[in-house]
């Protein structure tokens, strides 16, 4: 059951966007996030929506699949919406005890909800079109110039790779331990929150012990294969910026320029 969780949610379709250099996609995503904060009107959101829809279309990822990614976040979006409605002062249109609904609040709440939705859809486009390995490689490569100021680029990337590698293994193990404890009468499903949290202890303790043992063995296996950190290490996959990457960055530049123009107009 736990095995079904797809981490990173890579959705390979081999589209134009999938084939881009991961660095390009990471940078574009960052630019996009910044762009979202330039937005100050619903007209701009219209532009953003068009842009995102265009990207989804090019990526060949089904829109339904994209929206499924929003589901777990709907609670956060709704809470943001409600808090904004009640917490913004201005023209009161409805009173609910000490809480006031204002026109400005309604506007602000809708605005924030949209921002969140676009944020999630845009960034999940990155993880859907980029395999976790490519993503890690891209991050390592982008952080490399920051090494002199003490950013451990290689180590961070290696940590991510190993985490990705061990997530399925540990999930499988959790499943196994859970079943073993259930066979001994453990109950993970009923009772109040405190009881449920308590019932997790016999699950987490063995899991942690095993994770540490695995880490120990993995470290030894890596050393045995001549691992000595990032120095002198080459990579099988070399990242190269191609024509398509430049085109994409240009498109992104234009998008940002339009957003800025709409804002200062």
């Amino acid at each position, binding site marked *: 059951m736990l095995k079904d969780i797809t981490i990173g949610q890579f959705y390979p379709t081999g589209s134009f966007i999938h084939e881009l250099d991961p660095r390009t996609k990471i940078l574009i995503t960052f630019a996009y996030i910044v762009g979202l904060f330039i937005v100050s009107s619903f007209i701009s959101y219209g532009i953003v929506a068009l842009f995102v829809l265009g990207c989804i279309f090019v990526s060949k990822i089904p829109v339904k699949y994209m929206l499924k990614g929003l589901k777990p976040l709907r609670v956060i979006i709704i809470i943001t919406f409600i808090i904004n409605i009640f917490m913004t002062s201005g023209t009161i249109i409805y009173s609910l005890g000490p809480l006031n609904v204002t026109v400005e609040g309604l506007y602000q709440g809708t605005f924030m909800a949209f921002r969140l939705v676009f944020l999630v859809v845009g960034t999940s486009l990155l993880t859907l079109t980029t395999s976790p390995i490519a993503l890690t490689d891209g991050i390592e490569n982008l952080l490399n110039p920051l090494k002199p100021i003490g950013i451990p680029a290689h180590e961070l990337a290696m940590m991510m790779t*190993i985490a990705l*590698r061990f997530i*399925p293994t540990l999930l499988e193990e959790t499943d196994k331990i859970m079943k073993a404890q259930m066979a001994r009468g453990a109950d993970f499903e009923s009772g109040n929150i405190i009881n449920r949290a308590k019932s997790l202890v016999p699950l987490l303790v063995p899991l942690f012990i095993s994770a540490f043992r695995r880490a120990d063995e993995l470290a030894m296996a890596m*050393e*045995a*294969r001549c*691992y000595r950190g990032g120095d002198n*290490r*080459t990579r*099988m996959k070399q990242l190269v910026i191609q024509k398509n990457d430049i085109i994409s960055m240009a498109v992104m530049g234009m998008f940002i320029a339009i957003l800025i123009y709409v804002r200062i107009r």
Partner: protein
Amino acid sequence: MSYEGALYIEFKRGIYMEKMIKVDKVTYDYSNSEKEVIALNNISLEVKQGEFVVIIGHNGSGKSTLAKHLNALLLPTEGDVFVKGLNTKDESKIWDIRQFAGMVFQNPDNQIVATIVEEDVAFGPENLGLQPNEIRNRIESSLKVVDMEEFRHKAPHLLSGGQKQRIAIAGVIAMRPSCIIFDEPTAMLDPSGRKEVINTIKKLNKEEQITIIHITHFMEEAVNADRVIVMEDGDIVLEGTPREVFSQVERLKKLALDVPQVTELAHQLIKEGIDLPHDILTVDEMVMKLCQLK
């Protein structure tokens, strides 16, 4: 090349190439303030180029500790270990030593680093600083040797235990080692996975001329070795061809070890007064000898 030069190379071959591994009076001490553990006790051992050595011994006899000495994962408290003539204590040679002497561990899950098979096989060559083209060539040839080419782009966690272990082996041979140490590589596998891995190990020895040191609890896996070494309390207590070692059934039992099932059967039959040799190792042999009776 001058005559002296040629002689020198011959000389070097004689001394170094012949001896893949030399363990010289090694003692290893895990002791801490709480208790004293001497895992290796003045042990000496030599392994020749191309040899297939199997090490057996019950739990805690020091097999894994010895294995970790052979590629400088552990350094001797006393004594020296030489790999192709290089002392493992020489820090400047440590990466050469680890490239010469690869190691495969028991748990396949805990030695695979990457999320895609080919990326994992690439891990060792990347650490050696090879060029991308060369790395790709090595991935291809290594996966071919272990017969896992069609899994090149698969995720390791979806493979069976035997397949994972073969990927781990591919990751080691991609570094072109002269010697591979296997520390109970079959202990966590089902019988079919065990067979896959054992056949791969045999193939590495026969076809790739890789020296093999194979630690195992399965006596059947020792039958085809050139030499069997029995460890007890951090030292070698018995050593010889599989026939020599397994014919000493009583001695092995005292060491809390088994013999191959067929050898055990022969031993029982001899006890019952049937005229059989002590050193039967395989079912075929047993059938032959039994048919020749009367």
